[in-house]
């Protein structure tokens, strides 16, 4: 268990200098002495390091808590599918608007209709919750779907180069030059009526382009690294090289991009619903709620504010989490600026 006597293993102060790429992705001065026999030190894997840094990012942690809270609230309050929730009203049944449908939410009271009622007396809390559910589902399906498509396209183009790359990247360019909103509107108008899952998949099919380019760039640089050459030299199958050696090293880029595409999807769905191409009534989404009641803004501002605040909260939370993840995956985040 002893180290080579003539192989000194000092903490690498030089690796702390910004711009030192040789010790990337993780210049870890503490870990460098991890093998000294008299100094047992905890061994951190890359994943553990990332987790450690992420949990220290206050903004991201607050955002994570808020997002989990919103998700739980949305899904438990009015229930999902056949499972009933704890909130007694649903988002479709109409009734008489009490007190002009004003919100009953006070500082310490919830009241009958905390978010108020709409013009036909539907409980607006239930509607907002339903909208949040739909928006969250769309956001995560789009986030995950576009990540999968983007990663596959980008990594295949980057690894195999040549004609495959030319075809895939020109396809990507083609999608990029068509305005996203127009493309999404046209396709979802065609697929309209087949529910939110179809809509989410359509959105995923048009939003993967930026990730594909990012991943391709990463793979292009990683495939020239010596560990990839070493893997090829021992006869490793390309698929194995791609999935075991290259993609795990692009995980930072992928995760960060996913979080941003999630918040972009919420906004995109809102825009589409606002324009009338997204979720169709009687179902609701946050964007649809806003567009439905845009004329009521002057007389019943709560019909705008509540869904608006939820869109804002979800998008902000996801962005903050993305920010925290980006910082956590960036090896230069290793130093404390004191």
């Amino acid at each position, binding site marked *: 268990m002893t180290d080579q006597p003539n192989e000194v293993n*000092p903490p690498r*102060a030089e690796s702390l200098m910004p711009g030192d790429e040789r010790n990337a992705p993780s210049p870890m001065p503490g870990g460098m002495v991890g*093998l000294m026999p008299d100094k047992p030190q905890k061994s951190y894997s890359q994943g553990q390091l990332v987790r450690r840094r992420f949990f220290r990012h206050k903004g991201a942690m607050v955002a994570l808590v808020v997002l989990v809270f919103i998700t739980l609230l949305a899904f438990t309050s009015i229930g999902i599918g056949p499972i009933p929730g704890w909130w007694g009203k649903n988002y479709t049944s109409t009734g008489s608007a009490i007190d002009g449908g004003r919100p009953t939410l006070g500082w310490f009271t919830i009241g009958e209709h905390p978010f108020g009622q709409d013009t036909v007396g539907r409980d607006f809390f239930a509607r907002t919750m339903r909208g949040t559910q739909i928006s969250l589902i769309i956001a995560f399906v789009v986030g995950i779907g576009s990540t999968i498509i983007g990663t596959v396209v980008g990594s295949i183009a980057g690894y195999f180069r040549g004609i495959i790359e030319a075809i895939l990247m020109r396809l990507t360019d083609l999608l990029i030059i068509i305005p996203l909103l127009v493309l999404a509107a046209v396709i979802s108008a065609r697929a309209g009526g087949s529910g939110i899952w179809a809509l989410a998949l359509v959105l995923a099919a048009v939003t993967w382009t930026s990730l594909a380019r990012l991943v391709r760039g990463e793979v292009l640089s990683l495939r020239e690294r010596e560990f990839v050459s070493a893997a090829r030299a021992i006869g490793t199958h390309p698929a194995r090289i791609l999935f075991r050696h290259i993609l795990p090293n692009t995980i930072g880029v992928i995760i960060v991009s996913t979080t941003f595409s999630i918040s972009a999807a919420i906004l995109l769905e809102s825009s589409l619903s606002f324009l009338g191409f997204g979720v169709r009534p009687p179902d609701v989404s946050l964007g649809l709620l806003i567009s439905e009641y845009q004329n009521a803004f002057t007389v019943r501002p709560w019909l705008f504010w509540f869904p608006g605040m939820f869109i804002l909260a979800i998008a902000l939370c996801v962005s903050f989490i993305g920010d925290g993840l980006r910082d956590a995956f960036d090896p230069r985040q290793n130093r404390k600026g004191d």
Partner: protein
Amino acid sequence: MALFGKRSKTHAAADTEPADLAAPVLSFSGLDVKFGTEFGTVHAVKGIDIEVRPGEVLALVGESGSGKSVTSMTALGLLPGNARISGDITVAGKKVRELSPTALRRMRGNDVAMVFQEPMTALNPVLTVGTQLTEALELHGVAYGRDAEKRAAELLTMVGIPDAERRLKQYPHEYSGGQRQRVVIAMAISCSPKVIIADEPTTALDVTVQAEILDLLRSLKTELNTGILLITHNMGVVADMADRVAVMYKGDLVETGPASEVLTRPTHEYTKRLLAAVPHLGARDSAPPESIRESAAPAVRVDNLVIEYQRVGKAPFRAVDDVSISVNKGEIVGLVGESGSGKSTIARCALGLIPAKSGTIEILGTDLLSLRGKELKGVRRRMGVVFQDPASSLNPRLPIGDCIAEPLDVHKVGDARSRQARVMELLDAVELPRSVFNRYPHELSGGQRQRVSIARALTLDPELLVADEPTSALDVSVQASVLEMFTTLQREYQFACLFVSHDLAVIDMLADRVVVLQNGEIVEQGERTQVLQHPTKEYTRRLLAAAPVPDPAEQRARREARYELMKELGEKSHELNIA
């Protein structure tokens, strides 16, 4: 030239004085640097005292992580924000830590200048060399406009770049590596600083170019009376250049003294170890290898190999031209040459990583270039590879154990238990503790990572090992232990080895036969003793003459011999060219 002419005249008197009477131009006293990091504080420099006098070269020697670069950066006030510095740093009578940002900026360039390791990154690729040189002159108010351009041309001529006026309009990529370093030196001396900090100025250069740049640097101190703080890990460079040596180890100054003292009679244990680790050309006994393996079948036979790189819009670049090499079983063949000689290209082609234009590569009796799919995988099973950069040759996301077991997994050899046993066996063989099994590459030092690379290469008991500069990214002492281990393993496993290196001394230590390459062609090949001790070709002689040895007296003699050779070959001097 007026300015420099004057300077060297005024200092003519100072030159005759003993150096220790002049006031130091750069001094550190009680310098202490700490870095705050996520994992606590790293104590990089632990209270050291160093002085550099005018016209003197002080070599700061140590391994990576010893704090030598950090020390030099404090003189320029260029440390990152998480550094905590205490102690005094004086440059030309000014206390660096008390200077305002403006004064600090004025000091950089005027009083102290820097020559960086990598000349390509030290120069801005989108600006012409002329613009970059005049910028420095104009910023410091030395000359403006036309005058600045004239001065820039003079500076280029001084550092030995001919046709200066035309070359000022060129971009850095149009210069060769050595010329780029000359430009960096020209920029450094443009404002006639009193001290120059040269941080590994020749590490990125070929050995013959290194000798030229050292000639140039050496003339700076005599002609301009500049003090030079030379940071290096190459003991040969120290012997060639330094008046005094300071040895750093883990942030401490362990030994200082005149170069002739420290290098020949080191007192500190660490210095002794460092010097003992330096591979010495001609140190291995000159007896022919104990077993002549000529009867053995060749493990590799390369015949008339031509490799070309396709270039868009240009004729293809011929990297390797008509090369024939053979490596017998159980034999180490050293491929040596400068950068661009095609040695790594040959190695990569022998691994089947890049295609050949023409010629054949026969590996273990089968033609590698005609193989596809399964058969190619079968041949690759019998080969191992070790690459140069230990930081890049291991997948950062795989624990060491998985990494070494990867070839077993790829070729479906054994089960989980037998694989683990094999990994443990290999870890023992490369002298790593078994506990690294669960560690990640970033937790290991460079030398340890290279041991892991070697273990991975040996996993499948290869009959052939291709090693592409396996020790050139390592510190000398680490290099020594890795090479020693490599020799032991080769004796034990009896694999044939194609060993690529630019370092003649390393090749001398390991190889049975040597192939010298230049510009993609073979210059000379034969038995090690014959090629390295009685070279017949001019290029080999130049290579051998340019390699510095870590003994000042011997190095001086070698330098004289090199000047003789240069004269014989009609080459001009590389010293500062003051008209």
